[in-house]
């Protein structure tokens, strides 16, 4: 009997509990913002080398370990938001330079708008809360 109850918990309750996991929410939030930042960095320079992106992100403390960036770049490329070209380098093998696709550009515009809206809303809300508190 105990076994049956446990398996019920496992099958039905656990996935729900997982969804409520705050860590996941935080990660998602950070990932979204990280994407926004990466696209912005690439947009600003026209194109960018992975190491340059890393340096900027690390400076502004957006990432802690570098490994995170690579799967993210590949995913953005897979989603056709980014493309890359090879460029000869004076100090070694050719380097991969990332740039935005048209889709990526539109995506970034949308993110920017959403960000501004969110920022305004959050600022307003937190301001009110601070005043009340």
């Amino acid at each position, binding site marked *: 009997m105990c*076994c*049956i109850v446990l*398996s*019920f918990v*496992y*099958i039905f309750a656990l996935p729900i509990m997982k969804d409520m996991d705050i*860590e996941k929410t*935080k*990660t998602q939030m*950070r990932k979204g913002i990280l994407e926004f930042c990466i696209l912005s960095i690439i947009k600003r320079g026209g194109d960018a080398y*992975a*190491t340059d992106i*890393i340096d900027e992100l690390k400076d502004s403390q957006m*990432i*802690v*370990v*570098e*490994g*995170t960036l*690579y*799967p993210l*770049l*590949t*995913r953005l*490329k*897979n989603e056709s938001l980014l493309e890359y070209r090879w460029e000869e380098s004076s100090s*070694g*093998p*050719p*380097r*991969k330079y990332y740039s935005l696709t048209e889709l990526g550009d539109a995506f970034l515009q949308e993110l920017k708008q959403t960000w501004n809206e969110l920022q305004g809303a959050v600022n307003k809300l937190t301001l009110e809360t601070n005043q009340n508190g």
Partner: protein
Amino acid sequence: MDKTISISLGGFSFIVDDRAYQKLKNYLDEVRQSLNGMEGTDDIIADVEVRIAELFKQRLDSREVVNEHDVEYIIGVMGRPEQYLNEDDETAGVSDSGKTYTGKPEEGGKRKLYRDPDDKILGGVLSGLAHYLGIETWITRLIWILLFFADIPMTGTSFTILSYIILWIILPKAETATQKYEMFGQTGDFETIKRNVSSSVTGVKSGNSASNVFGEILRAIAKLFLIFFGIILLLIGISLLLSAISLLFLPDGLMPMKIFNHIVDYEWQSWATKIFGFLLLGIPAYFLMLFGIKMMYDKMKIHKTISLTAVGVWLIAILGASVLTSTLVKSFSRNIEYSNKSAYTVDSDTISLAFNEYKTVGTKKMKWGMEYDIDDFEEFDGKLNKKIERNVEVRQSPNNEVYLDVVYSSKGSSLDNARKNAEQIEYNYSMNSKGELTLDNYLSLPKDVKFRNQDVNIVVYLPKGKVLHTQNIRNVIFYDEQTNGKDYQRGNNKFYKFVGDHYECLNCQKVRIDSDSFDDDDSVNISEEGIKIQSGDKKISISKDGVRVQNGDKKVNINNEKTRNDDTDSIDNSESGN
């Protein structure tokens, strides 16, 4: 001094010492693994390698050989493999970079039981167990094989296989570096990790020791066994699945559905039973096939979610089936019997007891329950008919009357319900003035009445002086009131008379009845044609032709008038020889 290896990384070449090489390779393997088959994994690894090369360049400066600390530094910068997809996994504290990944642990840390994916034949259970016990892998494998052979003859089932499969399911696989450390109980000892990856490293390899060779042989034998048992498991699985499917499509007209549909109160119960039955058989069949294939083809992936769902559904089916069963069992929980006693005055010296061999349906006579026509249960004539056991219990009548006691019995969810069910029984019998009691060999229930094991038992009370002639009765049960004992006798065309203190058979001493006695020396045969008694070369026959007696070659014939066709004497005594 450690060996050094020259490697190419991200378009640069480096000289790396042995330890650093192992560590780096292991790290890249784990990164690849942690990406979990994501699209573009190769690109990511290539990019990571380029970055690592850059970092090495920066760090080495004028040094030539990359050492273990450099790799640790790299890991600190790039992050642990599990952080690639999920940076917030900061359980170990990334801040003191590098140190965390390999951070020196307490000596002699506790070993944990994992499955070892790097040294496995099937699931890595036995190698994991060996690591846990701190012994060589081939030892646990050998013990397993020995147990396997001892197991089946001793217990009849293979608990060895069963326990292996259970361990396979419940033990986690040692995937991350930390887990592999824990498996050996020596967190941070790099040598242990190196042993794990040595099979995939091409650079350095020590010669095989004797135990390794032995291990390889065992491995090959085990592989053969796996294929063999894989096929067996697969076949069992397939046949089980087929029976599960056929269960689902059991026709209503065939047993057991024929009677089952009369037991259930609602039609959905019948359906639910089929579906539960299908799941209860089909899911183990699925797993048997799955494990069978897995045994033969190691690389096949077992989908965890599907498997867990299947186990869950199976447990639900068990729950459902037991609820269903208990409601059905409850319908059979009470038992009631009531009897219908009738008295007859019989003048004849012989009382005949017989079960009808035929049921009359309309104008037709149907033979019941023989090798053709119909089963023990049959629905016709708008009724459910059930064959009864052709048993008759014989008791002593207190006077000169013959009593017939028909005992109706039934089960039900309550006594009232049981009585109601018993009262629905229709059963026919008839007694004529010649003392011939004819009983139906079946009972009938109206079609809408549920089958609750309704039954009929026949008890006959006989006066002492009467001879009992039984026909087509399976067992005649003589009840002795003094000893409360029951004496089972056969009831196919037998004569019984009360002699002394019990009934004795008049025509069945030391002889077989109804035998087609071609090769039997002794026989008594009583049939419609007459009586034939034979013992060796002595024969007596009484038939419509007359009476014939033969002793060896002496013959006496008394012929019936009808068959006498010439003027020979009615008594023909022929004798030849002496």
